[in-house]
């Protein structure tokens, strides 16, 4: 499938936006300006970009603890994201959620969920809503190889299968649950054996190749919009950082393994391809980067200069209405 130039540039821009955002978040975290847990999405950008490239704001997604990339790819406001990560009143959740719980219901981003596997049942509800609305909308849920070890994963696959829900399961297989390899934890071996058992059409792809993700997600989304769901897409990838950024957590993964994946950087390899195929010039690439860095800078400044919530605001929003 040959993509048109604008789609290629959009995919590249989305990936680079996530990369630059996450680099800034990591830098500020290590400088002591951001507190709490930061689960960096660096290394996995092609998946959010390739999948969300097919979604409209009426499609709904559910994300996980490593959720910044999904928010950005779905169209969330970078300034409000950064403010939330900094715990500020102007953040998406008024400082109550932080990095792990960013949501923007106005664009169909139903929230990042910090409990491994727990987003899958929630996404079945979003998919049922899409089906009842009858407008060809769908839901997509992002999760990792770790979630495939949870009972909720199996419950959600079964439910989606028997109800034929328009739900796209996007497994971001980064091969580790914290430091424990999925090869140890998953008896099934290949993850796609599990959707296979539930008679859910599935495919495993190289998740660092954004065009491969975009093409596979496009085929899946077309099926779902026709009412032929669900679908399961396994994207094999690797996170570059530790499970979460911290000085205390050791990264026990083999160095050579990490290096073999950083050589297959989703952003760098796609940039090289776009240059090679003369889709973009070096100057154009530099221009895109410059714009993104300026947006990230603006977002960080916005977050930094925004006020903290008043302490008593801790009592607000426990209930609606």
């Amino acid at each position: 499938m040959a993509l048109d130039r604008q789609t290629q540039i959009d995919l590249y821009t989305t990936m680079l936006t996530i990369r630059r955002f996450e680099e800034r978040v990591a830098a500020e975290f290590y400088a002591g300006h951001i507190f709490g847990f930061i689960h960096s999405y660096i290394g996995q950008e092609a998946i959010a970009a390739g999948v969300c490239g097919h979604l409209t704001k009426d499609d709904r997604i559910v994300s996980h603890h490593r959720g910044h990339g999904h928010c950005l790819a779905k169209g969330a406001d970078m300034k409000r994201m950064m403010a939330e990560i900094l715990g500020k009143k102007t953040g998406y959740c008024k400082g109550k959620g932080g990095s792990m719980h960013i949501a923007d219901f106005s664009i169909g981003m139903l929230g990042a969920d910090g409990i491994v596997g727990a987003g899958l049942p929630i996404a079945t509800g979003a998919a049922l809503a899409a089906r009842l609305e009858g407008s060809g909308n769908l839901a997509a849920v992002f999760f990792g190889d770790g979630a495939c070890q949870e009972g909720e994963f199996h419950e959600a696959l079964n439910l989606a299968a028997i109800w034929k829900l328009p739900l796209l399961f996007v497994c971001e297989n980064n091969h580790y649950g914290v430091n424990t390899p999925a090869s140890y934890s998953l008896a099934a071996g290949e993850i796609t054996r599990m959707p296979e058992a539930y008679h859910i059409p599935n495919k495993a792809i190289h998740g660092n190749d954004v065009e491969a993700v975009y093409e596979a997600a496009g085929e899946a989304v077309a099926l779902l919009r026709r009412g032929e769901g669900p679908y399961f897409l396994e994207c094999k990838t690797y996170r570059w950082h530790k499970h979460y950024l911290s000085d205390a957590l050791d990264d026990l993964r083999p160095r050579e393994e990490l290096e073999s994946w950083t050589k297959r950087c989703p952003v760098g390899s796609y940039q090289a391809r776009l240059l090679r195929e003369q889709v973009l010039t070096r100057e154009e690439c530099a221009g895109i980067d410059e714009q993104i860095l300026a947006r990230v800078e603006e977002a960080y400044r916005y977050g930094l200069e925004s006020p903290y919530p008043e302490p008593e605001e801790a009592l607000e929003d426990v209930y609606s209405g």
Partner: protein
Amino acid sequence: MREITYEQAAMEAIQEEFRRDPRTVHLATDPIAVLQEEFGTERIRVTPIAENSFVGAAIGLAGSGFRTVVNLRMATFGFVAMDQFINHAAKITYMFGGQARFPILYRMTVGAGISAAAEHSVTPYPMYMNAPGLKVILPATPYDLKGLFKTALRDDNPVISFEHVALGDVRGEVPEEEYFIPFGRARVRREGADVTVVALAKMVDEALAAAEELAAEGISLEVIDPRTLVPLDRAAIFESVKKTGRLVVVDEACQTCGAAAEIVALATSDPATFAALKSAPARVCGLDVPIPFSPPLERYAVPDKAKIVTAVRAVMA
């Protein structure tokens, strides 16, 4: 006035509200014929036996603009879905800064008395009271159930209705015309002067029976049913205790860290209420044991009229 059963009252409330709002869904592990016939199998859905999946699906539906009723049947099955209840349903409004509303009514039965043994005779609403973000209702009559359901089905929060297993077939007066019972409004089931008895769920009936018996001895009980535990009508309890000067709280749930403990703590921490007390408040609760199977053991483990009478005499002594 006409009489209908507790469960019929539930169905009426659901039918009325599902007619009014087409963006409503019902999830349960069994088909419910009366609802399926009227609203179809797309909206009245049968789920697999996978509690986390459908308790969570209701959250996703809510986040997508739908209202859902989830019938878990027994509260013991609710434990299977504790991840979705506690980590998600309770927190999601708050954690996302109030961006979205999560209108869900979860139903489950509680209580002992049917020889169902330990796993199927649980009374766990105190655990849910400890998870801010959930509302907890405890209808004790068909009238209260319908009125509380009507309110729950227009509330924009996750509400859990705990329904005593022995009440399902109980009949009671329910008006034909529409009515709503607001949350956080206790009902004085019997006015009295000597002892305030706050009773929960099926214990309301036991407390009323105890009041009848003690009236013959000249002891006058005021029986209060809070009807909802979150929110709780503290003012009604305080006012009654200030009048009677004595407090007994009756709950079938285990005594430790229970609703009764909370009610006693609230009453004794309110200076004016505390000052009015003539004797130490008492709790009449389920024993801190799993509910046993054999009828004599089971009866021993939960409160009844006789235990309430004994407790009242003690606070009067």
